[in-house]
């Protein structure tokens, strides 16, 4: 139900009808309605398509703020949400930045910068 395996890879579903890839649990495609989604491995790399840097957290991120909440378009398709540690101000991250899924010490999908070499190619 989590969309990821702890310490492992992101997990997704693919619609055999329209090809939509999602990480969100469901029995049928939210785009075209077709039932029977197939398991689909997701890339652990992608680019930020929208984000915020949060200074006022809820209970579960009390010790993390400020941090970034990001929507990421993964290489090969599919979008997931996640968070990034240590992003304290808006200028530290930007739309289009490459990121990679990392093992986290807490539940939830965590990303980190895919650093310098531009190893993540554009989606």
């Amino acid at each position, binding site marked *: 139900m989590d969309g990821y395996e702890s310490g492992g890879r992101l997990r997704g579903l693919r619609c055999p009808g329209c090809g939509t890839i999602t990480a969100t*649990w469901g029995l049928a495609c939210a785009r075209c309605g077709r039932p029977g989604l197939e398991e689909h491995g997701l890339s652990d790399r992608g680019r930020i398509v929208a984000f*915020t840097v949060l200074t006022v957290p*809820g209970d579960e991120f009390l010790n*993390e703020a400020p941090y970034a909440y990001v929507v*990421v378009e993964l290489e090969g398709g599919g979008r997931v949400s996640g968070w990034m540690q240590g992003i304290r101000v808006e200028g530290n991250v930007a739309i289009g930045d490459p990121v990679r899924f990392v093992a986290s010490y807490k539940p*939830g999908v965590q990303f980190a910068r895919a650093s310098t070499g531009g190893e993540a190619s554009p989606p």
Partner: protein
Amino acid sequence: MRETWIVGAASSRYGKMAETAREAATRVAMEAIRDAGLEPKQIGHTFVANCFGLAEHQAHVGPLINSGLGIPEVPSVTVESACSSSSAALHEAFVQVAGGFVDSALVVGAERLSHLTTQTATTFFAIAADYPFETRNGATFPGLYATLASAYRAAYRTTPEMFGAIAIKNHANAARNPHAHLQKEISMETYLASPIVASPLRLYDCCPFSDGAAAVVVSARESIGRPAREPLVVRASARAGAVTGLHDRPDLLGLPSTRTAGARAFRQARLEPREIDFLEVHDCFTIAEVLALEDLGFFPKGTAARESGDGVTARDGRLPVNPSGGLKAKGHPVSATGVGQVVEIFEQVNGRAGGREVPRTGTALAHNVGATGGSCSVHIFSRR
């Protein structure tokens, strides 16, 4: 379908409430029933919204409200649709009355969260997102709208001042509304100096956590010969849903459920946006007002933030938006918000909006969103 009217309305002051949501709900319900010139025993069904009732250790509050009104035998049901709970309750009341099942129905929404800390209230609000796929990944309610704002800003190159103008306008309206939580004007300097809550949203982009209660009475035209107040004719009561997770929406530059519910409402009412005189829209954050105005078809995509600064949406502008002060400054007592918008429209039509009247009150629209658009209600009203 029978012609259906809003015949009475009442609201508490939004803000910090000493009494429970149950008491406040019962009080405004009684006021709305009397405002309509009716007796409680004429109510055929009560529709209640109290999304966060568990914060007061109370579910199933409908029978308690009805008993407090002296009508324990009348059926009630609680409707939950996050921040659109009470407009969803209004829709259910409309269905029952228009469909001929009851002649008059009570719709009441109430919320009390001020006894919680900001952190706990933030946690509560985030529960209405997709918990395993958004909230547990760090999303908060302001964080999700901030994420939408980041996409909008990148696409249309908006400035903070454009959003500041919306906050300033809604505060100016709330300053003239005795029901409002934040009855104070703010300046651009104050707006720009307010701290970032979730970038790019500043504190003054955000609605407050409010307590409050609001109620309306919905009646069939033929059951009320001569209404005590000028009724609002319900021209449309439309709802829509959408995928909840922002990461599952290919387009982050609007709310798909607003587009769908809005189109349905205009079709039901056989009206077009240019025929609407004023609006109450769901502006939990300034970005939400911008998205609402575009998704409902009042402004072309990418222009509402820019145009709002020119006074078009001010109380005396071409299209007054949120004369009540909106969620932004009137306040956002989650389950009272949707029906509270209708209270504002009723008061405008009945000449009770002293000091914040809009110039034309022939036709009005109320737009209420559940969370980040998993649900949306659009109602259109006109004078007879």
